[in-house]
């Protein structure tokens, strides 16, 4: 398993920012949505994670501690706020795709925030 070469995460990790090993992958992304990883974003993240067969974990640091990315209860316990770098690691047949998709979701700000400073012209 390779470590991501983007310790500050965010902009560096797109679908290509997830480094794939044989059956393991890692990636990271900067939380930039205003409210952090709370209710709706957590649900979206866990739903996306559940669509992959791989075991996926999310952590606040490159060395963990890690929690199950398919559990909204555990993700909410992490209380990751705006400006946190989320790290992902996955093991399984579709690990690389899973990490890439999760990183992309975070970078798209969970497809939210049409209002506020984020989107007006």
């Amino acid at each position: 398993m390779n470590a991501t070469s983007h310790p500050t995460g965010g902009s560096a990790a797109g679908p290509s920012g997830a480094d794939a090993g044989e059956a393991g992958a890692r990636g990271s992304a900067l939380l930039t949505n205003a409210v952090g990883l709370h209710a709706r974003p957590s649900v979206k993240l866990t739903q996306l994670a559940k669509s992959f067969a791989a075991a996926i974990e999310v952590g606040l640091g490159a060395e963990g501690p890690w929690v199950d990315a398919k559990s909204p209860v555990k993700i909410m316990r992490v209380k990751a706020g705006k400006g946190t770098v989320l790290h992902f690691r996955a093991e399984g047949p579709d690990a690389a795709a899973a990490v890439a998709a999760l990183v992309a979701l975070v970078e798209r700000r969970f497809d939210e925030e049409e209002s506020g400073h984020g989107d007006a012209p």
Partner: protein
Amino acid sequence: MSETRLQGRSASPGLAAGPVVLLAAPRAAARPALDPDAAAGALRRAMSRAAGEIAALVATSEPAAADMLGFQLALLEDDALAEGAFHAISLGVPAELAWQQALDAEIAGYEAAEDEYFRARAADLMDVRDRVLDALAGGDSGAGSGAAASGIVAAHDLPPSRFLGMDWSAGGAILLAGGSPTSHVAMLARSRGIPMIVGLGVAPEALLGEVLVDATAGAVVIDPSPETRRAFERQRELDGRRAATEAAGALEPAVTRDGTPVAVLLNVADPAELDGLDPALCDGIGLVRTEFLFHDAGALPGEEAQRAVYARILAWACRDGRARPVTIRTLDAGGDKPIAGLTVEGESNPFLGVRGIRLSLAREEVFRVQLRALLRAAAGPGGTGLKVMLPMVTVPAEVARTRALLAQELAALAAAGLPAALPALGIMIEVPAAAIAIDLFEADFYSVGSNDLTQYVTAAGRDIGALADLADPLNPAVLRLVERVAQDGAARGREVSLCGDAGGDPAALPALLRTGLRALSMAPGLVPAAKAALRAVDLAGGRGR
């Protein structure tokens, strides 16, 4: 009895008066202890029943409420939520107590959060906790049965599903000892127009009596004096009259006091926003953001999918069989709006990076698909109203290049036998270079993007809270640039509008009209108040006649 005044935080504005009703806390009935296996089974059934109730509520709720209930459902369906409870049950703890303790521990974790958004989610956990307790007790959930009377409800905190289970059709208000303006229930109260105050810091029982609620100011008066009551009633009458006037005038055109007509257009981020809106609300659509098309499924949207969305918006804008203007902005990705696989990653300053038209011209294969969809939509119903707008234009060559691409694609569509037409092509004015040298640009119309123009002119990032005062769209330098653009438009017969946040801000409207602007684009919800503010402006006064 003398009156008592209490101060909390406004969570949803408005006024209300009347007697206070306490929200009874649901509690689980005592039940004989079961052996661990039976207790675990009872909890499992209660959880599944609660999940069923929530799922049924989701089906009948408005989207915002459905999202919130979906969060509760996701928690309830997660084994991790009840792990501690099942462990306690295996040690002989009764099911109700085990569940209550496990959830209370989870709730305490939320309440201890530094971030208000996370603290506010404690109410969702309480909601889940109480619903399962009710199911364990074998009764109807207080949330599910329309048990609660509305009126002025006082409680420590109000779970969202109990709010949804109440009848608010006759009005009412919510007074909470705790709570948060960012809670789901506060969001629901705002969307239903129910006044709500949080953080009153006293036991709900202390609020019992006749009260006046000024939720705009966050104030409650208990047992008010006759004078206070009269003043309150006067305020309520004024507020009611103002809201009624705004609502009544919302479907009428906006004309200033001196008789100058002002076009009011809509900003649309998602076509679903138009559902249920009366097209008479506006004179057309001043900005359709197309970023939403690029957010799904990681795949870029195809030509046909885009054409169908554009056609739907054009059809909505038609009135009495007549096409009205619909300005669709080409993809404005980049800056603070990254799109995976499309925008450039790792820019040190994305606001000064490859964004807007710069990105579209760098990714021509993606841009051509959008231009083809627009050319085809222009030949469909309402298509004569279509105007295509380019974001972040900095130099005239960007417009010229887009015109060349449009001409090529128009020819290709004609060769393929597909109906297509060339729409008007305009530019957003948000880069100072374009505003200053506006006379060098060949565009069919201009639309001022006041948010970005302000941040670039004042060098104050709009995502930096500490610079909010500097990032002022009414800064004289910004207004002079807007005036320059409006004058160029008037001199060369080009329409000029403004589609930033300032366009829907009643306080900013007089200054914007004095720059010469006569068309403003804003979020649909801001139209009634903005039209009322526009009607109060007198452009003849103080400027000669």
